[in-house]
């Protein structure tokens, strides 16, 4: 009895899960594996269009013989690079009509013309012509003929499905793509973005955890950058930072903080004279990191605030009795309480910042030293139109990601053990 029950339970579970699992598998897991396949191929953006045989039907009347009509089919291979094999053509003709001198590649069978055009090379073009005659000498209706669409079919190689593999893409990724520059930019961006957003998250959480007028309002406001659409915020920042008409530069110039406008998003390096040393600051990258911090510190804030509010009040009261100052309280009570949240936040944010695409893409498009790995995927795939290379860079990202996740889950596991 219980055996059948558990069987039913299992079956129900699989039925309930099937739609979701199927969808996630086809839209998320399949592409990740497909990336591996594509990354070993030399495929460009233009190769992925499947070649199709096409025919444009033009109907013309023949002079001085209303019982005849001329049909011209403009045949062509839609692809500029791939051949189509074994092209078949099929079209219907109206009743009581007959083709005159039908092309030898074609056959007529009960008002249907079937043609066998054989192989079409890439860019193939032909004007194929049929003349129809009405058997009873009546006028042929042009519209009727026009309304019938010819059917064409053919076989072609899908460049994605053949088994020619190459290591070229990976060679290019590692040796011709300034790979280490890319990697260091990505890590620089990820690390400082993550640390910055956590530091500001802690500060904001400390603030909101105190009592003051308008505290709930303040909490809502702090989350605005995180919930706002990235497109709108990025363009607003772009206007704000514009070197000529931007508000920030004009304000700084107006109050004589700087002498000439700073191109915050378009300048790779800024040389700062610091006690006689020339320091080179990566300006555009720093700006992008600041945007990143501005947009994502709210998440850290939310987490840390939730944790802070769970810290027992007695701890602070006991510290007051012992005569501890605010700094001491922060270091010996608050910090140990939130350190677990911080370490998990660090890992999560690190993984997400590592994959961040939209923010940089919208602000700088990857120019002036802000090219990270995700930006490179887009550039390779869609700017340079090399799908294979783009996939190879994606694979590098996935591999690094798997390493981070391994560390993250180890960390989670250890936390779970400790509790």
């Amino acid at each position, binding site marked *: 009895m219980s055996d059948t029950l558990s069987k039913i*339970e*299992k079956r129900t*579970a699989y039925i*309930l*899960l099937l*739609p*979701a*699992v199927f*969808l996630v598998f086809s*839209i*998320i897991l399949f*592409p*990740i594996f*497909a*990336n591996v396949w*594509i990354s070993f191929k030399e495929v460009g953006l233009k190769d*992925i269009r499947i070649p199709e045989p096409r025919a444009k039907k033009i109907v013309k009347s023949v002079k001085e013989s209303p019982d005849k009509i001329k049909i011209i089919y403009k045949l062509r291979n839609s692809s500029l690079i791939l051949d189509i094999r074994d092209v078949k053509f099929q079209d219907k003709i109206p009743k009581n009509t007959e083709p005159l001198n039908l092309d030898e590649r074609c056959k007529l069978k009960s008002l249907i013309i079937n043609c066998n055009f054989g192989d079409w090379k890439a860019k193939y073009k032909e004007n194929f012509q049929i003349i129809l005659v009405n058997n009873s000498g009546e006028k042929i209706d042009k519209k009727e003929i026009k309304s019938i669409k010819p059917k064409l079919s053919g076989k072609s190689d899908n460049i994605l499905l053949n088994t020619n593999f190459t290591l070229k893409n990976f060679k290019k990724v590692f040796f011709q793509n300034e790979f280490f520059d890319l990697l260091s930019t990505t890590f620089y961006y990820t690390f400082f973005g993550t640390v910055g957003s956590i530091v500001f998250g802690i500060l*904001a959480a*400390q*603030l909101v955890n*105190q009592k*003051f007028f308008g505290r709930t309002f*303040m909490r*809502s406001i702090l*989350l*605005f*950058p*995180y*919930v706002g*659409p*990235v*497109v*709108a*915020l990025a*363009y*607003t920042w772009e*206007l*704000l930072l514009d070197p000529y*008409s*931007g508000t920030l530069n*004009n*304000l700084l110039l*107006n*109050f004589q903080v700087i002498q000439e406008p700073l191109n915050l998003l378009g300048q790779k390096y800024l040389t700062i004279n610091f006690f006689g040393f020339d320091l080179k600051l990566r300006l555009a990258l720093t700006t992008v990191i600041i945007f990143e911090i501005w947009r994502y510190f709210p998440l850290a804030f939310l987490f840390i605030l939730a944790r802070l509010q769970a810290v027992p009040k007695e701890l602070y009261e006991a510290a007051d009795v012992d005569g*501890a*100052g*605010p*700094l001491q309280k922060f270091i010996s009570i608050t910090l140990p309480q939130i350190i677990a949240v911080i370490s998990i936040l660090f890992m999560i944010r690190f*993984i*997400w910042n590592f*994959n961040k*695409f*939209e923010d940089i893409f*919208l602000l700088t498009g990857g120019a002036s030293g802000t090219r990270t790995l995700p930006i490179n995927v887009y550039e390779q*795939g869609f700017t340079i139109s090399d*799908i294979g290379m783009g*996939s190879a860079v*994606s694979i590098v*990202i996935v591999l690094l*990601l798997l390493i981070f996740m391994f560390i993250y889950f180890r960390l989670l596991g250890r936390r779970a053990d400790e509790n």
Partner: protein
Amino acid sequence: MKIKSLILYCLISSIFLFSLVSIWKVLSTLQGIDLENFNFAIILTLGIGISLINLIVGDKFHKAIKSIIFAILFTFVDGYLVQLMPIWYNIGIFGILIFYSFKIDKYNQKNLDLDHSSQTVVFEFLTLFGIVLFSFVILFPFYMMIVTSFKTQAALLINPLDFSINFAQDIKELFKSYFVIFDTYKFGRYILISTFVSVGTVIVTLIFAIPAAYAVARLNFFGKNFLSTSILIIYMFPAIVLVIPLYTVFSQLGLRNNVGGLLIVYTATTLPVAIYMLQGYFKSIPKELEEAAIMDKLNWFGIIIKIILPLSIPAISSVALYVFMIAWNEFLFSLMFLDNPNSFTLSRAIQYLSGDAETPRQYLMAGSVVVTIPVLFIFVYFEKYLVSGLTAGSVKG
């Protein structure tokens, strides 16, 4: 009285005063006032002076009288420094000084003598400073977005710092950018498409996620643990690594430029987090309720509809809002899959608009306001649900 505390108190309070006044000056500059100097040294000295007088006077006077005297004194000096400013500017300075005097009123010779008084001073002023600064830094871009959308190209070119809006003009002139983006750039259509995609994503995600989450939460089956961990791992894979294969397959299947295709992708990417959030909540529903239902010979469909759904309205709303927000704000997939202006979402339309260097920036900002307002409105209105969604979803972004 400790010297260290005294110095810290004077310095920090006057720096705080200086930053308040400076923010007011920046905001005034943006209203077209010609200010060119923060007068750092003078205002700092004044601030120190006021802080010291506050200590010396102590509570011999009522704090209201004290504040008014300080405010009048400061406003007078500042008015002399900047010369002939409009009256509202001076009223603002006066208000800031009243606020400031109330804040420093609680310091006196006694409490600067206590243990840790210097640390307390630093912490209290940093808090105040933080509140002001955080609000300013966060709200300023939003403020700029709204104001720019009401300006004209010419006005922005003449003085990029003049943010003042002329409310006296005709309403059609004032809202010109909005009329233009709706008339010329078909933003009405994009709003409909964005709404359709986002609401559609929410509905389809819930239809797929609720049964799956129920199975994960309640039923025993082979591979359950594996599935629960995979949900989390899958959730961490970013859109950028899916883009190329999806683009390729969608091109070959003719699903590009198709809003339905976008909806499928959004659903798949939000499903893992939806399942994760829902199953957590389903687990907290007492099992006894369902056992009673099984006695009544309800099948799983009946259980979900009659018992689970009514009990999990809060969790479902928070998932729905969270998914709506992700779908509404999504950009990468809409960039990849849509290149026909007839099927753009709002985000994609704004990006397309900015691609043309000729587009005046007030149109861009009007578009940004249109895409931002609904999300912020929903966020503020349903904050309770959304915050729990954000925390449970925890990672995406």
